[in-house]
């Protein structure tokens, strides 16, 4: 009787522990997915901003046709990109072309003094920041989730119920930081 009670007690404790660990894993994975979708939200924001920016700059710098075309092309290839690798490449391209757009605008003092342009510049800086912070947050949540799938004892529950570690979003850090500094 007594051994049965003890065994039963241990079983109950084990089951509760497993449920708690499982739920912890589910929550961590949910945070990762949510963080990933946040990146997309911010990327879309940037796409929406670009046509407006190009139009404003065009009004002052009509002769820089090539730069405008590059930006528009890079934007289009970002939207149609498939898979993480291709997406990252297209995003880098877009960042580069935007940089050259702002470099060109340096030559037009009237443009630089334009309130609308200044507002757009701030919006773009903010959007670039939002993207990199969203990625950073994705990596933070992924680190937390991956640690859970590898740490004892949650790793037992994780491997039994198919929680696999996620990939980090890796991009050249130096490149990212430069993108943030568009404003100066």
């Amino acid at each position, binding site marked *: 009787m007594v051994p049965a009670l003890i065994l039963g007690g241990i079983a109950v404790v084990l089951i509760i522990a497993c449920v708690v660990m499982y739920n912890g894993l589910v929550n961590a994975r949910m*945070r990762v997915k*949510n*963080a990933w979708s*946040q990146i997309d939200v*911010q990327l879309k924001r940037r796409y929406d901003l670009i046509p407006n920016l190009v139009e404003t700059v065009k009004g002052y710098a009509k002769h820089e046709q090539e730069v405008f075309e590059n930006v528009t092309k890079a934007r289009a290839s970002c939207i149609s990109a498939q898979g993480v690798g291709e997406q990252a490449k297209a995003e880098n391209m877009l960042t580069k072309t935007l940089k050259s757009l702002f470099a060109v605008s340096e030559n037009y003092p009237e443009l630089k003094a334009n309130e609308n342009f200044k*507002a757009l510049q*701030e*919006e773009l*800086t*903010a959007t670039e*920041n*939002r993207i990199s*912070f*969203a990625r*950073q*947050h994705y990596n*933070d*949540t992924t680190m937390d989730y991956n640690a859970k799938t590898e740490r004892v004892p949650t790793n037992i529950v994780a491997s039994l119920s198919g929680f696999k570690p996620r990939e980090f979003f890796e991009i050249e*850090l*130096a490149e990212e930081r430069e993108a943030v500094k568009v*404003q100066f």
Partner: protein
Amino acid sequence: MATFYDEMASNKRLSWLLVVAMTALMVITGYVIGLASGSGWTGLAIACVVALVIALVSYYQGVGIVMAASRAGRISKQEYPQLFNVVEEMAIAAGKPMPDVYIIHDSAPNAFATGRDPQHSAVAVTSGLLSKLNRNELQGVIAHEMSHIRNFDIRFAMLMGVMIGSIALLCDFFLRMAFYGGMGRRRSNDRRGGHPAIIILAIALAILAPLFAKIIQLAVSRRREYLADASAVELTRYPQGLAGALQKISSDQEVLEAANRATQHMYIVNPIKSLKAKAQSMFSTHPPIQDRIRRLDEMAHLYDDERA
């Protein structure tokens, strides 16, 4: 990387210790004061009711009250796009909802955060902060405030405020009663008052308890500032921004008019300048600013090495 998590864990332990110590202080004070004026349990009950009422009011109306007391007005994105963007960026980096943004029209640069949890939170900055800092420095300051929100420091600060307020109220009430009403009553109705030793103990406690409460709170408040600086860097990955901001804020000579002793602990840098000279004393709500900057500079080296 481990430093953020280590500090956060020890911060959590300390916070619990503080809540327990404060509760004990409040219960004991309530009981002894009750004992001195008739019944210990009545005193205890009054202490708990007072604390509960203040806690409920500040839990649900806290942001509004604090903002009104600091003469802060809520703003929209159209009015201050850059400030709004920076707050949103930091909310994204922390993975928290966007807090409400308030502005205080005062040329002294400073900022604070308040609220009950990340879903009901607010940050306030002065207009002086906006005009004196560049974007990266502003980002550092907002990251510091966002860290207070994320670490639940805002709720904790509110809880502490409530407990200290209740203890102070209770002691104040008792002292007044003892000096104006208590004496006469004791002569006519000796049984209702407590033993003289207990009355003396109660008076001593009523004078000392608010002081104790304050000292405990301040010790932890200082640690929280270091932690918020560290996790601000975790958010921006750019220690130079916050370091530059702290340098500018601390070298600024202007005085923030709307700040007072009740709200001083919330600000990023202590707004009461006369206290600055005594920054290392037991009664300061903030650690010495040069020490905070030094720690940030150390982190900056860390990040440089990583990138090199």
